[in-house]
């Protein structure tokens, strides 16, 4: 298209049309600069300025650069929080299924089958969601090009790849009861169960390993929150399945523990990112705050229903509430990260607080007096 328009103008003897914002006439110049490969479909596609969110309870006196963010907000779409949910669901299901198979309790055979199906289905959906979110989906195999232990995303890609393989084999061989094929299926299920443990929570490490204040502030509370949320999601999904009395009891116990832990660790996250106060503002205000609160309310109600005497409608309701709660949690946390990255005051306040918390830091010693003089004079 672009070539055609250039050719047309050339044949008509006109100046070349402005197309890609480079203003290079290909008849006169060669496009081979470092940025020449950058594709331009829409000239104004460069991200617009995001202004800092206005929180009413801001206690920060620090000035900013025209309110512009220091950090870039994440570029992920809804597929990523959706994957956090599905991956957690698959991982926790596989872990419970492996434990159920290992117990060799014949009454849990149905549960084992269900968890294998959920794990394998979850792995396939997870991979699809992740590929969909890539800027260049055709290059998804590059995720397995290297193994980089410093990158939680690289570690997670390998975990998901291994998990997907194991969970698929286990699901295909789920009907085998005896013989070598059953042994292969069980071994694969055990592998999926073990890989399911990191799969359920590495996404929290991935978020904590960023420069986003609200995510990195919850460095140690976020992983257990995501793991317990994964337990909630698996128990809630199984609550929506037909199970026998033994299996229902197993799922109920698993779910009660997961939901209680999830509530506990959401408090822990709030506490951990609570200082300085502005860092946790996205968990209290706006869409992210509403999702975060909704998650707590849904999970608490689901927990209350699980504690009631068992009945079919109560199980169903607990299952739906738990599912909604853990979905709201993942979407809320990801949304909070976006708002947090937009707020330069959160970035500044968190780093200044960490700095003053470690007095042995002599980094600014030489410049501190001058800086102090400069800053005291013009804080608006």
């Amino acid at each position, binding site marked *: 298209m672009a070539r055609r328009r250039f050719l047309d103008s050339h044949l008509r003897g006109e100046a070349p049309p402005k197309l890609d914002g480079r203003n290079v006439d290909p008849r006169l110049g060669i496009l081979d600069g470092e940025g020449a490969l950058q594709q331009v479909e829409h000239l104004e596609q460069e991200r617009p300025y995001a202004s800092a969110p206005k929180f009413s309870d801001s206690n920060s006196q620090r000035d900013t650069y025209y309110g512009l963010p220091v950090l870039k907000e994440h570029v992920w779409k809804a597929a990523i929080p959706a994957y956090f949910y599905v991956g957690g669901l698959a991982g926790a299901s596989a872990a*419970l299924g492996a434990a159920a198979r290992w117990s060799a309790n014949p009454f849990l055979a149905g549960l084992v089958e269900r968890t294998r199906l959920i794990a394998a289905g979850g792995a396939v959906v997870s991979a699809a969601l992740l590929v969909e979110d890539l*800027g260049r989906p055709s290059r998804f195999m590059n995720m397995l090009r290297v193994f980089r232990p410093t990158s939680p*995303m690289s570690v997670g890609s390998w975990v998901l790849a291994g998990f997907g393989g194991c969970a698929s084999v286990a699901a295909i061989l789920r009907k085998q009861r005896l013989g070598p094929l059953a042994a292969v299926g069980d071994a694969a299920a055990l592998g999926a169960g073990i890989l399911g443990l990191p799969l359920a929570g590495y996404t929290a490490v991935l978020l904590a390993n960023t420069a986003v204040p609200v995510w990195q502030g919850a460095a140690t509370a976020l992983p257990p929150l995501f793991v317990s949320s994964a337990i909630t999601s698996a128990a809630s999904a199984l609550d929506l399945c037909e199970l026998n009395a033994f299996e229902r009891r197993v799922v109920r116990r698993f779910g009660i523990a997961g939901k209680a832990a999830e509530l506990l660790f959401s408090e822990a996250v709030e506490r951990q990112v609570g200082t300085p106060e502005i860092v946790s503002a996205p968990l209290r205000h706006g869409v992210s705050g509403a999702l975060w609160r909704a998650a707590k309310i849904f999970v608490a109600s689901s927990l209350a229903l699980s504690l009631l005497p068992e009945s079919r409608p109560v199980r169903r309701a607990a299952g739906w509430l738990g599912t909604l709660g853990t979905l709201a949690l993942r979407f809320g946390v990801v949304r909070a990260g976006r708002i947090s990255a937009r707020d330069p005051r959160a970035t500044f306040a968190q780093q200044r607080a960490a700095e003053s918390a470690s007095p042995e830091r002599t980094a600014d010693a030489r410049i501190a007096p001058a800086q102090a003089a400069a800053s005291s004079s013009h804080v608006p």
Partner: protein
Amino acid sequence: MGTKGFFTDTTLCIGCKACEVACKQWNQLPDDGFHFTGWSYDNTGHLGSSTWRHVGFVERPVSLGMQTTGVGNGSWLMMSDVCKHCARAGCLESCPTGAIVRTEFGSVYVQPDVCNGCGYCVSACPFGVIDRREDDGRAWKCTLCYDRLREDMVPACAKHCPTASIQFGELSELRGRAEKRVEELHKRGMPEAYLYGHSPDAQPGTEGLNAFFLLTDRPEVYNLPPDPVVPTKKARRSWTALAAAAVGMAALAVGAVLTP
């Protein structure tokens, strides 16, 4: 082939934006539209996927050390911002594909033929430099003019800087030059001058920047993070927390199937 870098002396910057133009032209980057922001002379706003140099303008009601003004107090700070090519780079350490590499010049380089646009580096950069262009799908940032360095040339921005505010060279040599400049400025009556990120000691979070700055006010004023830390440096405690949680989940699963 020693580590190469930039020393950006903001006291020499006159805000001409020749660096922005030279960068766009040499690297053949698309324009970002022509907006009027009203933020002093800054109509660029921030670094991004197709903006690899950005000149910031700060208008303050405070005078600089050796400055005299006719009416009232005031100073206009200008600063040409760029990718810092950190000694410990958050983008590089978080890249799952190995697209981001350290070059023989010590710079951090994104290979466009490998990047699959996962977007993780965007959130991992503590300076908000690297960004994904949505219609291209990949992450882009300053390359320290890798193509020019291979030909023994100076990066386009430094070459075009008319006041030597942007200086390019061997990192060790630049550090010495920068320290001398700060001493000189202090002697001439500008005690607020200091270096930002010039050594691993000055900025342990990134273990030093290959592109460091001479500033005359707090980093926040220039939209620089006061104490940036590469996220990877703190990842161990998150992994430990995850390991503990995973053990807990395994125990819960076994407990749930075993208790009668």
